[in-house]
């Protein structure tokens, strides 16, 4: 039985910072979901990026993968990047919106 929770996964990913805006991916609202296999602790992260043209997208997904792999007893980690639903500023935390001038 796997003891890793979605919160553990999001906490791990919150160590990954977008170098352009300076906020972590979770507070940016870029992480849509984390699916955890209760049998073997495999984790699948569903995320997006703030723009389709992001030249960092391969690296960011790699950092997310590595961050989740640092969780104790985690199994295989997969990261899927999706464009729909498209990210927008309303998905970000209030501190991000405020800092970027979105509210």
């Amino acid at each position, binding site marked *: 039985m796997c003891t890793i929770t979605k919160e553990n996964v999001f906490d791990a990913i919150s160590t990954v910072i977008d170098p*352009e805006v300076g906020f972590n991916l979770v507070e940016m609202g870029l992480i849509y979901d984390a699916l955890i296999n209760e049998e073997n602790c495999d984790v699948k992260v569903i995320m997006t990026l703030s*723009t389709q*043209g992001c030249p960092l997208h391969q690296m960011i997904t790699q950092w997310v993968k590595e961050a989740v792999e640092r969780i104790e007893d985690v199994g295989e980690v997969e990261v899927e990047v*999706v464009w729909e639903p498209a*990210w927008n500023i309303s998905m970000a935390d209030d501190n991000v919106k405020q800092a970027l001038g979105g509210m």
Partner: protein
Amino acid sequence: MKQISSDFAPPLKLISPFFKYGVIFYLLSMLALLFFEPSFSYAQMSIAGWIHLFLLGFVMMVIFGAMAQLIPVVLEVGHAVVDVYYVIFPLLGIGAAVMVTGFWLMPALLPYGGMLVLVAMIIFASENIATLKKTKIRTLTIDTVAWSNGYLLLGILTGFAIALGLSGDLGINITLMLKAHVYAVIGGYVVLTIMGLSLILIPMFSLAHGFEETAINRAFKLVVTGVGAVFIGALISQEWLMYMGYAINMLGVLFYIWQIYIIARLTVRKEMDVWAKSMIFAFVSLILSIVLGLFYFMIGNENILHASAWFLLLGFISSMITGHLYKIVPFLVWFERFAPLVGKEKVPMLHEMYSKEGAAMMFNFTASGVVLGGFGLLFESDILFKAGGSFLFTGAIFLYMTMNKMLAYGK
């Protein structure tokens, strides 16, 4: 949910020389301005030399680097032969230098420089077309990339014919060919490409999302049609067709400005950094250039046309490029030196990698220089024009210095 395509971006070490040497050509262009007078004719070899130094050495060099990075992103396929960019860079750099020497000192060199640039651009356009063939996506942006590459080839072929004409190897009507050449290169390639790139980059850096693209689609169609009309009109000497082309192009650019306004209203980031200031200055310059262009058609005074071209080249095109360099170059350096350290040690943010003061000086001197120089041309005032040139050169020194600091960051 729609899945993302994989990353087809070329290696960053391949792209950075285009930006690094593009800035050196920009510095040389601004230095050269100090030796010009505000009254001139487009047919002067010295003016043609400066235009090629600026357009080939700076504008084309930076655009080619940006296209190497962005074409795979737009087309969602890898480059057909990405390594050709290692060949394009020296061919374009040396070709531009030889052409400028030809214009300024030794016309016999023009065909040689022209040949190097021709080869560089044929390789670039052929590679782009081969990459276009790989994609299954059919959008207007992709069609526009194809059209702009077609115009680039037409522009360089007419330019090469002019080079042969000037060196006495080919008997052609140079004035007629010059109009076709200028319009194919500046309108057909540079403006179309900047429109396409800015539609990707401006929303990316301003975090604007969910905007309508009807205006830009109209803008692309109108500019493609207008440039074609001017090009054919110039080749077959039909002025009415050329005027029609000018009008269509102006309408296209107005639709483009409208699209940027729509994006600006949805901008999430309100921070007034050097990029944001440069974008605002670029679009104000573009509007000023259009207004002056309209006055030229009504009054017919050459000074107004010179000022209009000045605000288009140095106000709009140049600011679009220099502003974006402060976003793109820190990214390139960060990617090479800091990306591997993520998760292992503290890494800098991109905005920490350049001197804010240096960038502000670059912007203030450059913007002042563009305004002073533009008015210098408009009123044929030597003092204003020289002051503008001095400010622009000072701004270029700050650009060069901040660029070097960015490139050396973390070494």
